[in-house]
């Protein structure tokens, strides 16, 4: 199997699997006061310190959650609610137009059910939010902004945002800035304190950790209301019995991700450059979407090192995906709805792509298990696959035309 979908999820790292299985057989509720409880609590707090150290945060800023979606919802809704409770004029939620649905839909929900006004921050043709765009949006009425959320790096096209500048633009007005760093951790220099962000989302399974665990890094002074209510285990902001084995394994994954980050990023960037060059050589009309990845943003690469996102004109993404899948090559067409229907990506549309072009797109994402063999396999297959998908894409149009002519 040629797995080129690390942005969807990553194979678990052996050391993480070991940490997970080792912790599974221990027992004790981390909130219990007896010996077993204390042992569980100790494992959680050590994990908290590990995550904090790896991501430039203080341990007290780490809130363990069930993953990226929960962290995003907690940040967007929780900060909005808490800030608005203090000042009812704070109704505006500023999010980039290319956010993951966990942020976008949380903000939309606030608009539909909680009286918020969502402002979608425009992006450039690479999918990047410019500092000026954010500053201008804030300046329209700084007092009315409850929260700003812009992702560290885009999950579809890999473009990295200037998080430090965006955070500073918010800080100038005392507005909390949240960033979804799910794709960034492990390949970009993510430093919570250094970034100036007030809240940051990280997910376990995107970096060789287990599913169903992640964290929200939340500054101590950032007001945040809980989304679900209960025991208040995590700073009274997040309730639920702590998932000790998952948290222990997650911490190990974050530790490895940060420790090996530079070496991994360099290796993936070389592999990715090779992949892009050879796909383009095979298919000169393939369009690489997103930042070309040749510059730097905040001292790191301007594009996720493992991300290659192409549009293949005249093709439909679902045809490409099926044909590659049949050859054992696994990739993604972008966002999918619950029925599994490929929709034209909101990210590409926000970048100004034609819907037909957006439909014919594929994301190849490299990660810790990727090798040059994977790239070789893809490069060998992609030419014939695109040719075949193109004939399938054109088949429908041809039939429609000939039929119309026959009926005239």
């Amino acid at each position, binding site marked *: 199997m040629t797995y080129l979908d690390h942005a969807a999820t990553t194979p678990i790292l052996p050391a993480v699997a070991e940490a997970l299985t080792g912790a599974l057989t221990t027992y004790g509720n981390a909130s219990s006061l007896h010996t077993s409880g204390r042992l569980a609590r100790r494992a959680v707090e050590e994990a908290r310190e590990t995550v904090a150290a790896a991501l430039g945060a203080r341990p007290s800023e780490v809130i363990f959650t069930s993953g990226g979606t929960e962290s995003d919802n907690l940040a967007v809704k929780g900060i909005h609610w808490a800030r608005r409770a203090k000042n009812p004029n704070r109704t505006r939620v500023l999010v980039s137009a290319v956010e993951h649905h966990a942020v976008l839909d949380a903000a939309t929900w606030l608009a539909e059910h909680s009286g918020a006004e969502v402002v979608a921050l425009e992006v450039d043709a690479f999918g990047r939010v410019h500092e000026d765009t954010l500053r201008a949006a804030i300046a329209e009425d700084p007092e009315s902004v409850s929260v700003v959320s812009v992702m560290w790096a885009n999950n579809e096209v890999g473009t990295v945002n200037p998080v430090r500048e965006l955070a500073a633009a918010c800080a100038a007005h005392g507005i909390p800035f949240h960033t979804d760093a799910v794709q960034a951790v492990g390949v970009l220099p993510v430093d919570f304190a250094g970034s100036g962000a007030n809240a940051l989302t990280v997910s376990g399974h995107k970096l060789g950790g287990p599913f169903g665990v992640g964290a929200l890094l939340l500054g101590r002074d950032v007001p945040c209301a809980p989304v679900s209510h209960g025991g208040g285990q995590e700073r009274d902001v997040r309730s639920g019995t702590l998932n000790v084995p998952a948290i222990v394994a997650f911490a190990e994954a974050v530790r490895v991700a940060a420790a090996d980050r530079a070496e991994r990023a360099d290796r993936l960037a070389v592999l990715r450059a090779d992949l892009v060059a050879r796909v383009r050589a095979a298919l000169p009309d393939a369009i690489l979407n997103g930042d070309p990845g040749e510059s730097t943003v905040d001292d790191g690469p301007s594009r996720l090192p493992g991300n290659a996102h192409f549009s293949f004109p005249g093709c439909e993404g679902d045809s490409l995906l099926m044909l590659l899948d049949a050859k054992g090559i696994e990739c993604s067409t972008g966002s999918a709805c619950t*029925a599994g229907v490929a929709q034209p990506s909101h990210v590409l549309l926000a970048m100004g792509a034609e819907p037909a072009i957006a439909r014919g797109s594929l994301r190849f994402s490299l990660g810790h298990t990727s090798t040059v063999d994977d790239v070789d396999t893809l490069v060998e297959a992609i030419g014939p696959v695109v040719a075949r998908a193109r004939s*399938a894409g054109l*088949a*429908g149009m041809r*039939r429609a035309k000939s039929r119309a002519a026959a009926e005239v």
Partner: protein
Amino acid sequence: MRVLAAMSGGVDSAVAAARAVAAGHEVVGVHLALSAKPGTLRTGSRGCCTVEDAHDARRVADLLGIPFYVWDFAERFTEDVVEDFVAEYAAGRTPNPCLKCNERIKFEALLDKAIALGFDAVCTGHYARLAQVDGRPELRRSADLGKDQSYVLASLTAEQLSHAMFPLGGSLKSDVRVEATERGLAVAEKPDSYDICFIPDGDTRGFLAGKLGERPGQLVDDETGAVLGVHAGVHGFTVGQRHGLGIDAPSADGRPRYVLALEPVSGNVRVGALEKLAVREIIATRLIWPSGRPIEGTVECVAQVRAHGGTSQATAELVDGELLVRPGDELRGVAPGQAVVLYRPDDAGDVVLGSGMIVATR
């Protein structure tokens, strides 16, 4: 063969796919997303393109061990089936959307894509028997006459049929359900779908009113020309309809009135006595010959003018490129827009000779 199995999430297409796998074909399952706004798990399963149906199809594919994808044909379906359905009613005709879906979506949009992607055939759970005889397709009624769907497949060309596969044609529906249970398919007990899939509440008149709005017209006595009432649009009526005409006063002779004709330009709906519905001649165009061979001379056959019932002994001939069908028995309620399908009676399943769209009756 490389076979693309269209899987609706129902029991029939599930067993059809299972049989294609069992026959040794290389099968890939595809669920067609046809609705621009698919139902949710909460709204439950009615019709044929809810999230729950996609899930059911996926679980069958899992069990069969075949790859499975959901392909979006909502745009094509809306244009070629739903909009056509509405336009036909607006024009005073009575369309059959299932027939149109087979003709334009399953065995055109999907089949074309499948062929281009390297498949040899599209497999569905339709009840009709299909064989190749001397290199030509031969389409027959299914063994289960109660479920026979040859009428809604008769508008497929020989080329389309040569790439079609209907594994259930020789089976009874009851046996298909038993087989689904034996194969452990969770959809074995799923109820049949009867409604038009894009009108899940079954309220066709309400659906059309929503699309076409009010287009008021008059109900006119076909005999006397007297205006008997008003209506909200010809799209609310079908030739042969008796109930729901909205006429308060009884007819002069006290006998029930039926819709005889729809006149979209004037907005008139002509009504009259039952015997006026009797049709002696049917004219059809857009002729399709599933075997690839048109009829020659005057042919004795059985004609069917709607999906369920409406059959008669008949003679058929081609006159100036149009099909002229003369039913031997009295056929009533023959609605323009429906298909007329000609069958050659046969003990091994009546053979489809051809079909056309009814444009006029006399």
